[in-house]
């Protein structure tokens, strides 16, 4: 296969995964959340238990008018959804499903993924600033503060795993993984999960889009397809963080019968993690802004540092 064709195939495959997996998670959220609340959820679209609900939603969003507020900073306002969405696409390309199945096998893919996801927040900031709406701006500021607080424990938790594996490559990290890590890296896994949910601005950390206070935060003024892009970015973020959790802490493609079907294990583990993320949304109320900061700086950062020290000591002791 010539390099150009290979690049094309890989790009199309990543794009397809980027468009399909978030829809799967979104549909799962529709149904799981509904049943957790004693409801049925969508039942009509597509015939069987509303499986095509999100496709129908997409068609609806595409038909809606694309409104740009008169006072908005037009170029920034119109560019923001792309800035929010594309980093997740870039990051998803670097996450391996199995040693051979990865969009772009970067040598330091752990760093690449973390850096790319951190860019995504810029889209929210741009959207909030350019909307010329005080609620949007407040939401964007909250999002920025939240990102600043939670990026640190997230990076520290990943650093601990990288230290344990002795590599910055996600493929090598999952390759070095052994079941003993489940206990050894447990505090780090907890920190990573909480910080990831906070970075995605998912409940219980959804103050930036707190509908009762800020309407819909930075996304208040958006309509139509641009709004849909922000929603897609949220669910793509869930997919990305869940897969990352599966690769870093759950051993990715390792499992029984993982010869050629290792990628299924990664997807399955990632799916379980995303169900957990959905479950947290249904079960828990939203934190207050100060509680959020307190949790990050007094809870997660010390815990992540402790994990880092534990990993370092163990690696040095056994080396």
């Amino acid at each position, binding site marked *: 296969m010539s390099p150009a064709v290979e690049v094309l195939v890989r790009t199309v495959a990543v794009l397809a995964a980027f468009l399909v997996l978030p829809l799967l998670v979104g549909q799962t959220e529709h149904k799981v959340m509904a049943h*957790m609340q004693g409801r049925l959820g969508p039942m009509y679209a597509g015939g069987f238990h509303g499986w095509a609900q999100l496709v129908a939603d997409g068609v609806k969003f595409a038909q809606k008018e694309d409104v740009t507020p008169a006072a908005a900073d037009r170029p920034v306002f119109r560019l923001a959804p792309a800035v929010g969405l594309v980093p997740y696409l870039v990051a998803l390309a670097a996450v391996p499903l199995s040693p051979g199945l990865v969009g772009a096998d970067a040598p330091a893919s752990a760093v690449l993924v973390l850096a790319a996801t951190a860019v995504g927040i810029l889209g929210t900031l741009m959207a909030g600033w350019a909307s010329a709406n005080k609620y949007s701006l407040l939401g964007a500021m909250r999002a920025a503060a939240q990102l600043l607080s939670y990026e640190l424990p997230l990076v520290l938790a990943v650093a601990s795993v990288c230290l344990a594996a002795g590599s910055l490559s996600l493929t090598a990290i999952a390759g070095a993984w052994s079941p003993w890590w489940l206990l050894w890296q447990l505090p780090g896994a907890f920190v990573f999960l909480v910080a990831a949910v906070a970075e995605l601005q998912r409940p219980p950390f959804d103050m930036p889009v707190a509908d009762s206070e800020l309407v819909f935060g930075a996304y208040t003024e958006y309509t139509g397809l641009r709004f849909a892009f922000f929603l897609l970015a949220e669910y793509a973020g869930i997919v990305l963080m869940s897969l990352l959790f599966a690769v870093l802490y759950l051993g990715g493609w390792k499992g029984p019968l993982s010869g050629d079907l290792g990628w299924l294990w990664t997807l399955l583990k990632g799916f379980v993690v995303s169900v957990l993320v959905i479950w947290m949304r249904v079960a828990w109320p939203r934190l207050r802004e100060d509680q959020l900061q307190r949790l990050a700086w007094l809870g997660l950062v010390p815990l992540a540092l402790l994990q880092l020290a534990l990993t370092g000591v163990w690696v040095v002791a056994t080396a």
Partner: protein
Amino acid sequence: MTEAAKGSRAAGIPGLVRGLAATARTLARPTHTSEYPDAPPSLPPRSRGVIALLAENCTSCMLCARECPDWCIYIDSHKETVPATTPGGRDRQRNVLDRFAIDFSLCMYCGICVEVCPFDALFWSPEFEYAELDIRELLHERDRLGQWMATVPPPPALDERSADPAEVSALGKPARAPRAPRQAAAEEGQA
């Protein structure tokens, strides 16, 4: 830190676990959703869906129209003369119903008309699917009101140990003796 704040912090983790458990339990149970258009709803007895008219019982007495709080009942009638049935008798007059209409855009479903009708011409029906796109189409005439009679449920059974209904207790009473003919009574008076 106050005692209450300490208590709430101690309740933090168990509270989170309880939240997860509650949602998981609900997930495992059947849902409460009633799939209305696909499955008929189970309405409680004596549901007030629509008012049905048994036009044969209506005497055009206008009680319902006059008691209606928002005047949503329209009745037109005329009088017809019924010729005497016996020679030398008197012609009788009776009301004939020309129009009976209820405007359900005004009706507030108080049921006063049903209560006040002395001849059992109005009934509650549980039928509720008569929405219209134009509010003016909610004015329903007597033929439509009559069609809803088919959906009126039988009256609910009486409570245990309640008194017999008047129709039943009347059966147990001795029949009235027939009144003596008027002519004979007059003769007796002369005698």
